[in-house]
């Protein structure tokens, strides 16, 4: 199919429709507003559900309700709004309900700012919800990848019976790029939702309850062990990453995701022009973190330079993934400041100087 020029937020909205989203519940917040705005008109055209909720808290609980009765559901928000949604996300994980959450990240803490940021890394990977919970999460770098992941995510959420979060920074939400909305994506065999509370107890022959409450600690522990087994399966099957310029087994390897990875690509090209080869691991899945990419690093790689639009959040995962095998360096900007290519180039050169 021909590519069309679309704004990130609108492209994600259309991708959700194409991915089979039955219902959307959300609350306005910059910089993701074009997403619900688009759906407010188009969901009705497809005979699907759109509700502007009274708050982020209500929105995620509507998601919880609709997912509990078997629908494919989406909500979207930005960092402080995602913090408010953590209650409902925890209930969804606890009740093993699928659902898709799009987070168009902005600067924090508190009200922070509205410019692009990646400072939700911990909120995404550690989650802000209570309990031993995990959310399958992806951080694409351009609109084509974003659209494809949004389309795929509904089946992924159903497959694992767990929320999926797609995290992009405000830059990806606001930018326009040509995208092919109809690129084929991976599909999954999803078992029928015989667990859903659909209001058909008689037809089913038993009543279904959607619950995260287990007052018996042994039962709750058992439930948690089952959830852990599911997270382990995600770690085995869902690690996604891209390796860039790694053929020369470079001594310095950058680690960056999302918009930051694109800026880092420009830095790699600029360094190449000067005869300096650096590689990059670009995590696409944030949870599970792409440990496999680090395990496969060449002996020749000595230094990992973590790049973030936040101040050392993914850095912790890079340290864990390296497990002491590399010198770990860091460069980050935050608060909505988007770094320029030159800043990364300078940082790499400074590391090389120190290493000599």
């Amino acid at each position, binding site marked *: 199919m021909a*590519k*069309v*020029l679309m704004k990130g937020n609108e492209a994600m909205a259309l991708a959700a429709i194409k991915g089979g989203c039955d219902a959307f519940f959300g609350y306005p917040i*910059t*910089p993701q507003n074009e997403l619900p705005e688009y759906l407010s008109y188009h969901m009705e055209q497809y005979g699907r559900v759109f509700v502007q909720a009274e708050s982020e808290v209500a929105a995620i609980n509507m998601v919880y309700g609709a997912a509990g009765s078997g629908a494919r559901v989406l909500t979207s928000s930005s960092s402080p709004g995602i913090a408010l949604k953590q209650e409902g996300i925890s209930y969804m994980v606890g009740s093993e309900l699928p659902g898709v959450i799009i987070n168009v990240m902005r600067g924090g803490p508190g009200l922070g700012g*509205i*410019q692009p940021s990646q400072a939700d890394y911990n909120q995404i990977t550690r989650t802000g919800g209570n309990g031993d919970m995990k959310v399958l999460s992806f951080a694409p770098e351009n609109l084509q990848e974003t659209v494809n992941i949004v389309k795929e995510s509904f089946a992924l959420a159903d497959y694992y019976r767990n929320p999926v979060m797609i995290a992009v920074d*405000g*830059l990806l939400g*606001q*930018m*326009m*790029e*040509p995208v092919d909305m109809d690129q084929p994506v991976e599909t999954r065999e999803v078992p029928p939702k015989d667990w859903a509370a659909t209001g058909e107890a008689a037809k089913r022959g038993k009543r279904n309850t959607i619950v995260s409450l287990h007052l018996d600690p042994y039962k709750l522990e058992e439930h948690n062990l089952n959830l852990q087994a599911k997270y382990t399966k995600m770690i085995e099957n869902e690690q996604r990453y891209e390796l860039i310029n790694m053929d020369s087994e470079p001594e310095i390897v950058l680690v960056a995701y999302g*918009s930051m990875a*694109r*800026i880092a*690509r*420009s830095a790699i*090209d600029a360094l190449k022009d000067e005869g300096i080869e650096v590689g990059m691991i670009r995590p696409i899945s944030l949870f599970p973190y792409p440990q496999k990419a680090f395990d496969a690093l060449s002996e020749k790689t000595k230094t990992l330079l973590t790049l973030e639009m936040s101040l050392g959040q993914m850095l912790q995962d890079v340290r864990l993934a390296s497990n002491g095998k590399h010198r770990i360096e860091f460069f980050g900007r935050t608060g909505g400041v*988007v770094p*320029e*290519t*030159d800043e990364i180039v300078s940082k790499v050169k400074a590391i090389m100087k120190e290493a000599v």
Partner: protein
Amino acid sequence: MNKTTEKLIVAGFGGQGVMLLGQIISYTATEASLNTVWIPSYGPETRGGTANCSVIVSKESINSPVVSECDTLIALNEPSLKKFESKVRQGGTIIVNAGLVKEYSYRDDVTVYPVDASKIALEIGNLKTVNMVALGVYLGATGLFTSDAIEKTFEKIFTGSKEKLIDINKQALKSGIEAAQA
């Protein structure tokens, strides 16, 4: 397109059609199967204050979407000129809406096209076409796209109640191209 990559910043007052100007270039690039990225400034500053967007058009895949140094600046007013002038690379191009700029000492290492786009737009009969006059100047100055290609984009995006705007915008585009070549 007559070069590998073009990086552009468009800036002006909110309401001057800065965003649309940038988008039309990206739409036209998409139609030509080129890579492109359009990034707006967003937030409260765009509500009546200054607005700007950046556009990259390239035959190669676009890595960093951030324009830290541009080939061309289109400044529709003086504050925008002052704010973004330093971002233009040596040998680059500045297109400026000269009617809204008082005495100004331009950089001497860039090519400047001072055109009173507001005046031309008023002569055409609609001040709102100032952005398309500037786009015309840009085409005339850089030859990035043909006016046919841009006019096709007009026909694609001005639909429904906006269809009636196509002719006046074509006229504005033409006047801009002529002004650049004068």
